């Protein structure tokens, strides 16, 4: 599949990616390992590999510049594809789909181009925390087959400013 992503880049006129691509924090908070997320599709990396954030911020921002492929109906998650062909999922909390969108406001539309750090979803963290047991927010690369390596950070991060992990493409 790395081969395919190289072909896609060639067709789209993108230059080969030199060095690593930094993925920024979509929300401010503390970085935690994906294994700590109490949902096996994230903990067992079925969705993809990445990191989770214990959020303290009030906005979900684009972790990378690209196209918003999907904003979930209930506005609790979105996916974005960068021009390098990195496919990322940002999923706020566990079991959040049950909230039916309560506490979330969509700021962008599906299909739009966004810059890294631009707010996509606004959230009422206080009220959401009262409704669901876990607000850990996984940020994962869905197409790990196109990724050669991933270097993760630790500690606290600020949305749209700090890197949470760096990937190099195949």
């Amino acid at each position, binding site marked *: 599949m790395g081969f395919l992503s190289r072909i896609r880049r060639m067709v789209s006129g993108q230059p080969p990616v030199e060095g690593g691509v930094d993925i920024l924090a979509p929300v401010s908070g503390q970085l935690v390992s994906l294994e700590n997320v109490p949902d096996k599709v994230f903990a067992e990396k079925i969705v993809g590999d990445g990191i989770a954030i214990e959020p303290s911020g009030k906005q979900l921002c684009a972790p990378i510049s690209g196209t918003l492929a999907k904003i979930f109906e209930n506005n609790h998650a979105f*996916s974005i594809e960068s021009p390098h062909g990195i496919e990322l999922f940002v999923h706020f909390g566990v079991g959040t789909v049950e909230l039916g969108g309560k506490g979330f406001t969509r700021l962008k539309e599906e299909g739009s181009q966004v810059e890294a750090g631009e707010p996509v979803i606004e959230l009422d963290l206080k009220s959401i925390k009262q409704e669901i047991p876990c607000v850990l927010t996984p940020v994962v690369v*869905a197409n790990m087959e196109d990724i050669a390596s991933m270097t993760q950070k630790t500690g606290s991060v600020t949305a749209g400013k700090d890197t949470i992990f760096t990937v190099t493409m195949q």
Partner: protein
Amino acid sequence: MTAVHRQSLIIKARHGIHTRPGALFVKAAKGFEADIRLACDGKEANGKSLFKLQTLPLSCGAQVEIIASGQDAHQAVEALAALLSELE
């Protein structure tokens, strides 16, 4: 042996095929050699990519068709149709 197998069904999962059921479907689809595609509302996507799958409107009550081609296409369609109708 590259016959195309298809099966249509209605999504019953209460919240549609969101991240968790979607990930489980993709994991199962990746277990087959066959090329797996899902068609919904006039759009088609690779059934082995959650990212692509999520661009389809797979909400509760939506009609979806599983299309498989390749060696184990028949088994793939049967197994994935059963899984998709069970997912919550």
